[in-house]
């Protein structure tokens, strides 16, 4: 029941809620549990109607870069 889903902040409201986009589905969620301010474009984790935390873009990007390196390295290896 508590699969948390990455979503993107698309609108900020003044009642401690934001609208997020989860792969095309938009909904309004509560910011009561997060102390840092949110900006439009932030990636966040949503759990039952609440923002739980931000997702660090740089860190996500680093992981994806690492995976790309693995893919490239292994392709080179198999070509040799």
């Amino acid at each position: 029941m508590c699969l948390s889903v990455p979503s993107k902040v698309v609108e900020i409201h003044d009642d401690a809620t934001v609208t997020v986009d989860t792969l095309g589905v938009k909904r309004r969620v509560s910011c009561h549990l997060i102390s840092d301010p949110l900006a439009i474009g932030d990636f966040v984790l949503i759990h039952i109607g609440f923002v739980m935390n931000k997702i660090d873009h740089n860190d996500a990007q680093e992981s994806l870069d690492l995976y790309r390196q693995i893919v490239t390295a292994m392709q080179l290896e198999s070509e040799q």
Partner: protein
Amino acid sequence: MMTLNDFYQGFRDPQTIGHLATLIAQQAAKTNQQINIMEVCGGHTHTIMKYGLLQLLPTNIRFIHGPGCPVCVMPKERIDHAATLASQADTILVTLGDMIRVPGSMGSLAQFRSRGCDIRPIYDPLDTLVIAQDNPHKTVIFFAIGFETSAPMTAALLAQAEALHIDNLLFHINHVLVPPAIDAVMSDSRAQVNAFIGPAHVSVISGSKIYQSTVDKYQTPVVVSGFEPVDVMESILRIVTQKVAGKAELDNQYSRSVSYEGNLAAQQLVDKYFMVRDSFRWRGLGPIAKSALTLRPEYHHRDAERIYAKILPTAEIDDHKACMCGDILRGLANPKECKVFGRGCSPQTPLGSCMVSSEGACNAYYRYGEVINAN
């Protein structure tokens, strides 16, 4: 800038999954030990099944499904509590998702609803506030379930109810904790687990620190992992690498949102309203000391379990004799070993909770059975 789609794609990329599988196989070939990884949480069980990850792994790596689903671990007597509360006059019982389909000893909440009780499933706890405000002459009871991940949301609901003086809102608290459940599994002499994948969302709230004691006490690696297939494969690689090196460390694969300390604001909120309960009986696992939360004395005026203590049933009720959920939650049996799996027990007519919850192990085996049989 990265779009949400790029983000998902990157963590679901089949080529990356395939290459990680090769790296895992290379590492695993360096050891002849059997690596039994418990994925504590049903969310991981489903990723493993849905993306067919089992077929990609060498035979000395085995998965054991743990007790990490609040629906699976809810004992029947607690569901009977909910049904009893919902049967009171002028009462509305509110709860999350799958909970209403779990069988209690008198039936499921869905059955009670069809008999006329006002029971409302919701997806967002704060919807309960609106229900309470719209029904000032009724008592609204929030049947709260979930692990460390969900407790702060209940706390936020309680905080709002207090601030807005919504006095007709009560709580029945069933929030459970992951580390004591791990202890219960490991303290069984038959336990076969020698590594853990920890659910990222629990640690988004509580930090990776909650597993330090597991690592120290049982000398098992724990990797906190995200839920995408690439996340899970990377976590397996990290576990196997530790095993080959003879290490047992706490590691965090989901550093993009999990820190060692976790979300402190959420932890403070939980602390303000809740304290640890002396003992809680888990479905399949029995009573586990200090494994759940209860309201602090300052909030007893909101505690439905106390207010209705006289009418709530107290008998402890175990599952159907044929049901092996207990062994499944401990990692001692596989759903397919259950004699009624797929016959007497299916998602349409579940006998035990592991089949009811969409994240339960039996449900996953039922839904993705063909993927598994192909293994």
